[in-house]
């Protein structure tokens, strides 16, 4: 009933949301793959990407009203700035909150607390430095759907959604290739499979772990920028809910599994947006988590299973 009309007007934003969840979920899944722990500070990596993108974009746009090729350039600048900020924060996070614990062979629980501590610290640091109110990015392109880029099943796709889709698909494909076909990817998979053996075979575990954090941070940071481009803007608390959702997506797809995180993110985004017109916004989370529970009951390791170790 609720979706018979305007189906694609809910599907398209859902898919866009799903791409963002997928990008963030990859950060959780990659780190889980190599360390078997949940990096709860990843939501703040995402937030850093939002601020990095915001500052870069607002600085380069100035008072211009960009259009055409210029717009594309600005988006790329923001994306790169967001990704770099996310990567840097993730790298520092690993150095400060994880490596010292790893060197001392701390129990798994210590990593978790350390991550939560870093999460609060980064969140409040951002709130203190950048203000407690949400900040808006200067538009690199026009956000109104009065001029949709193209239409799918009668519904216009706005530039914003198109940008998310293009950026996310590019990054997802690059990541997939990177993990499956490069030396770094081989290292990540080796550490995920058996860290001790990998180290005996000459893999520098610390190096691989740091690189994994950076890769996850780049993706999360870029997602932060794309998120901040939307109507919500950028704020110091922006990471919390998307972080929880992306973690859910990673579990849904099979934590540790890269394609699982992508699938889980897309599914969750679409389901959420489809649920809203049918049962209302305040039931969205209920639907998402009921589905998660049902999936885990049938497949406890998630839709695609845990398998970063094997070639995806």
């Amino acid at each position, binding site marked *: 009933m609720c979706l018979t*009309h*305007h189906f694609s*007007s*809910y599907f398209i*934003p*859902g898919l866009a*949301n799903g791409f*963002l969840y997928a990008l963030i979920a990859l950060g959780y899944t990659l780190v889980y793959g190599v360390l078997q722990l949940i990096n709860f500070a990843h939501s703040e990596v995402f937030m850093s990407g939002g601020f990095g993108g915001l500052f870069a974009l607002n600085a380069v746009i100035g008072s211009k009203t960009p259009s055409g090729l210029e717009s594309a350039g600005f988006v790329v600048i923001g994306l790169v700035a967001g990704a770099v900020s996310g990567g840097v924060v993730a790298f520092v996070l690993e150095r400060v909150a994880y490596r010292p614990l790893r060197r001392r062979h701390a129990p798994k*629980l210590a990593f978790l607390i350390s991550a939560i501590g870093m999460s609060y610290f980064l969140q409040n640091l951002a709130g203190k430095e950048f203000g*407690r*109110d*949400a900040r*808006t990015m200067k538009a690199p392109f026009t*956000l*109104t*759907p*009065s001029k949709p880029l193209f239409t799918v099943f009668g519904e216009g796709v*706005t530039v*914003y959604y198109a940008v998310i889709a293009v950026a996310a698909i590019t990054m997802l494909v690059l990541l997939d290739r990177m993990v499956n076909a490069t030396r770094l990817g081989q290292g990540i998979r080796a550490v995920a499979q058996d860290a001790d053996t990998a180290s005996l075979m000459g893999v520098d575990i610390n190096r691989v772990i740091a690189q994994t954090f950076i890769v996850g941070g780049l993706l999360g940071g870029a997602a932060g920028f794309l*998120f901040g481009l*939307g*109507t*919500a*803007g950028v*704020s110091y*608390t*922006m990471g*919390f*809910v*998307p972080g929880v*959702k992306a973690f859910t997506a990673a579990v849904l797809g099979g934590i540790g599994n890269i394609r699982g995180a992508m699938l889980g993110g897309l599914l969750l985004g679409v389901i*959420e*947006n489809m649920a*809203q*017109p049918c049962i*209302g*916004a*305040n039931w*969205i*989370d209920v639907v998402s988590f009921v589905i998660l529970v049902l999936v885990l009951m049938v497949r406890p390791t998630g839709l695609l299973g845990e398998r970063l170790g094997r070639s995806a």
Partner: protein
Amino acid sequence: MLNRRVVLTVVPLVVAGMALSACGSSKKSSSGGSSTGGSSTAANTGNKPTFTIAYEGPLSGGNAQLGLNMKFAVQLAVNEANAAGDLPFTLKYTDADDQGSPDQSPAAAQKLIDDKSVIAVVGPAFSGATKAAEPKFADASLATVSPSATSPTLADGGWKTFFRVVADDNAQGPADADYATKKLGAKNIFAIDDASAYGQPLEKAFEDQAKSDGATVTHQSVPGTTQCQAGSGNTQQYPGVATTIKNSGADTVFYAGYYCDFALLAKALNAAGFTGKLMSDDGSLDPKYIEQAGQNVAEGTYISCACADISTNSAAQDFLTKFKALAKFDSGTYSPEAFDAANTIISVLKQLGAGATREKVLAALPSVDYKGITKEVKFQSNGNISGTAVYIYQVKGGKITSLGLASTS
């Protein structure tokens, strides 16, 4: 193992904390409670007792601006009363930050209750926070006068300590509905609440009245976001909600909630191509709404409030000037009400003189009759203000402008 370790470290800390706070409050009570104490504070104020008027509201978080509007007004009232020099006691100001959240409000209330020098409280500012904290205030016989908590059910709580100087949403909701249907000609209304103790009853009151006025009303509950208040919502929910609204063919959107989330919704509606009218309530009556939504999005939005526009009131000009000097920003939503709430308490304290106690203040408040800058403050037996008046405002040229009373404008 873990539990024991946690217990072993946490318990001593908590005990130590309690001991420290107990020391702190007993010291304060000795200087505040008796006029013959001869403590250091009494020495330089000529042996007058010290009473503290406290304020509870959001001082941080997404809705902090509303809280700050009131904080400085209370502070100003205290400063002015002290400066007049005719008081048989010295007034002090303190505050407790509840972030407008029901989760944090009881702790904020406890802080004020434990401070024995606190004689009465202005606040809590938000309805949900009031609902959560009022049982504690009632147990402690600490009177609260809220400048802004407008949820109707608060008056039914049976808390003898609850008072408010603003009309409740039972006045605001129906007045908004009448204005939307009769003055704005709304036929198909999409009403949204933020799933809070404030938004939900307000939306209900609005919806009932709008339906009886003959309009079609579609309702959806959209939880406030973590970014704005302590809600559970995700900012990414708004594009979908905006699509639903646009697809419903509504000509008017009524939002029962606060400015921060309303701004997100307004932006999403604009991005979705919605061109109908926007209307919201006193929670959105703040220039920050325009700032966050953007001037072109906010332009034309109707906002209602049980709060009067005092810019044309000659008796209030002095307040406006002094407020700006103290707060470094202009008097905002509920600043004048907070000023009145504080002055109502001060007028009771003046009657009671140096022997005032929490219990005496509580006993005297129901019979108070104080002429404030927004209205004459008199309470009904359930703590509600006597008489109601709802005003309509509109965003024009990037500024919130008063259109006057909802019933006459």
